[in-house]
Structures are given as C-alpha cells and as structure tokens.
C-alpha cells in the first residue's frame, strides 16, 4: 500500500516534466545540439531524419521557448542557418534527463 502511494507520488512528478523537451523529435534535436557546439540546418536534417518542414516547425517552438538560438547568415548568395543551444536550453535538457531518470528509477518493479 505504501509503495503504491509512493509510486503515485512519483507519477504525479511526471506532470512537472518539460513537455517541450518530452516530444521525441524535439528531444532528438536537443540531444544533438547538446553534444555539439553548433550545427547547421542540413546537418540536423541528416542526423535526425526529419523533413525540412518538420524540423523547421520544431525549431521554431524551441526558439520561442529560448532553448535554441537560430543565426541566419549568407554564405555567398546562399542562406545558411546555424543553430546552437542557449544556456537555458542546455539547462532544460539536463533538467529533463535528471527528472526522467529520477522518476523512472524510483518506480517499483
């Protein structure tokens, strides 16, 4: 009974999980940007396997949240988009990993 209550408590902790990071495609983008300093749009597309539109829409949400900084520049006449995690995004990803690990580790078998 007590362990069921504890499990209920831990499950309630799941509501505090950052839903913006929790979405698989965004999690993949954040994980990739977490392990590198910066990457361009094409590199992220190839590594994640997301389509141009999908990636663009997820990046917009991450930019709105302040997790990703998007720098648009021109290389010659071609537009070039570089992306990197902000300090806030890095902290959010780290926090998400910790809280997910804690919740899942504390669940009874």
């Amino acid at each position, binding site marked *: 009974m007590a362990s069921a209550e504890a499990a209920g408590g831990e499950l309630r902790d799941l509501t505090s999980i950052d839903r913006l990071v929790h979405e698989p495609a965004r999690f993949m983008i954040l994980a*990739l940007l977490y392990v*590198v300093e910066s990457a*361009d*749009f*094409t*590199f*992220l*597309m*190839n*590594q994640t396997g997301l389509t141009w539109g999908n990636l663009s829409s997820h990046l917009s949400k991450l930019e709105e949240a302040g997790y990703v900084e998007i720098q648009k520049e021109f290389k010659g006449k071609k537009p070039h988009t570089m992306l990197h995690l902000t300090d806030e995004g890095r902290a959010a990803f780290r926090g998400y990993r910790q809280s997910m690990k804690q919740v899942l580790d504390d669940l009874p078998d």
Partner: protein
Amino acid sequence: MSEKINLKDLERKAFRSTFQDGLWDIFLGLLLLNMGGGTLLGGSEMSLLWSMVVLTLFAGAVLILFWAGKKFITTPRIGSVKFGAQRKSKLKRVRLALFVSVLLGALMALWGVGSSVAGVPYVIARLPLPAYVWAAQCVVVFSLAAYFMDVTRFYLYGVLYALPFPLGVVLAQNTNLSGSVSMAITFGLAGGPMVLVGVVLFFRFLRRYPVGAQ
C-alpha cells in the same frame, strides 16, 4: 551512466558522419602513391630539384582537391557542424602527434640525405634507421588518430603507411629490382587499395546524400 554513454555515442556518430565521404581515404592513398612516384622519379634521370618540384606540385594538387571536395561536395550534402570542447581537445592531440611525426620524418629525410653524402661514417650510413622509424611513427600516429578521432580504419591505414618503406628495402635486397622500382611497387600496393576504398565510399556517399534532396 548509460545516458552518458548514449550521449557519447550520439556525438561519436555525428563526428564519424563527417568521415563517410571517402575523401580522407583518397587523400591519404594519393599521398602514398605520390611517394611511390617520388621514388621512381628519384631513380630516373630527372634532377633532384625537378623531382621535388613535380612531387610538391602533385601533393599540392591532391591537397587542393581534398579541400575543394570537402567544401563543394561534402559540406553542401551533409551540412556543417562545430564540435564541443572535448572533441576539439582530442583533435588538438592528433595535430600535435602529426606535428611531431612530420618533424621526425624531416629528420629521417635529412638522415637519409646525410647518409648518402661523403664523409658520413660508414656505420651510420649503413643503418637502415629511417625505414624503421618511419614504420614505427606511422603506426603510432595513425593509431593515435584512429583512437582520438574514432575512425577505426585509420588503424589499418597506419599499417599500410608503415609497410611500404621497409618492405621496399627487403624487396630490393632479395630481387633483381632496383630500389626505386621496389619502393614504387610497395607504395603503389599500399596506396592503391586506400584510394579504391575512398572512391567506393565517395560514390556511396553521393548516392546517399544527393544534393537536390536538401
């Protein structure tokens, strides 16, 4: 702990993806073939100065091809990425090992030239030291590069770079072939497969990442 390993794997996979175009293989293979060509030129009637000019021009052309391939073919297809501090520090170690290797190579070249100059003591001139030092340093440098850059085929390339010089000496001593022809054969046999692997990887890369798909 497992999460740490997964993130490391993710970074490693991202880094390795920049090596799947085969350009490094073609570049390293062509440099070996250039060395083989160099021994042939050395054995020909061409003057040392002109041989050096031809070899330097060829090496320069290979370097320009490598740079242009990366800039105009690879990067537009797979994109560009800057890696983190840990990877940068690993690459710094590889560069340091390469610098020491080039320095040692230059010393060995001087030794080789010095040995052929009159006045060098017979005992020193007879020592086949450059061949052994070359082989050892190739294995060490390529192994370090393979380890720090996570590109396992560089271990094999270390062996392929190490063998031609000492094997060329053995071939020249045990056959009727001249030293320059023996060296050209061994360098060619080592460099050829590297170029071939690179070309296969390059065409596979072009098929996998068509530029229009971006």
